[in-house]
């Protein structure tokens, strides 16, 4: 059985997303600490700028993918009854997809 996100592929995706999430997080944290947005306009302009909005969308995509693989690993390790495992994984998956759509709405609002 080979699902698109298991085994070696999941292992690689987990590491690639980790590197991107870490790099973006360090960059954004350093930028916001050195130059904190003084006003709503400045904050929205920064988030809505072409580079940051695209990089942020990628960041959240990578973060949610990373969260799916990580939480799935934890659930598979500690939750053994199959029905419970199924319910939790479906719930986590739906929550992550919903948050992905939510993030797109937030970022689209900052760009528009």
């Amino acid at each position, binding site marked *: 059985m080979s699902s698109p996100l298991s085994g070696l592929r999941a292992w690689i995706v987990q*590491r690639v997303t*980790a*590197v991107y999430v*870490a790099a973006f*997080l360090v960059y954004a944290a350093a930028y916001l*600490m050195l130059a904190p947005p003084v*006003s*709503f*306009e400045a*904050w*929205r302009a920064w*988030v809505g700028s072409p580079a940051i909005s695209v990089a942020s969308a990628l960041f959240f995509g990578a*973060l949610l993918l990373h*969260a799916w693989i*990580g*939480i799935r690993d*934890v659930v598979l390790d500690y939750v053994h009854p199959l029905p419970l495992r199924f319910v939790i994984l479906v719930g*986590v998956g739906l*929550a992550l997809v919903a*948050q992905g759509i*939510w*993030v797109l*709405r*937030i970022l689209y*609002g*900052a760009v528009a």
Partner: protein
Amino acid sequence: MSEAISDKDNRRPKYLNLLQIRLPVTGFVSIAHRLAGVLIFLATPALLYILERSLQDPAGFSAVRSLLDNALVRLGLVVVLVAVLHHLLAGIRFLLIDLGVGESIGGARRGAWLVLAGVGLSSAAALVLLL
């Protein structure tokens, strides 16, 4: 096979009581990396709400400002921040181990202590900056 197990073997303590297990530092860093990841996953909706509100309109931006002045909210954010710092530094350690850096027992232990020291120092710096 079972006859081969001597009385001495049977008397070996099995510390399945989690409170009695003394986890090696590498094990602690590993399980804390998992716990921190789950915590970050659970905190994400709240962080997204703060992000959304801050970008909605000037009123939302100042609402977030005053929300972040709340001591309880700050405490929660500090907990999430420490979790992020641990997840980040322990994660970098795991990536280095994948590359063969710090793979020996001694190297893995030194790396684990380095992660904990880094989390402590960066958390202290963040506390000074934020509170």
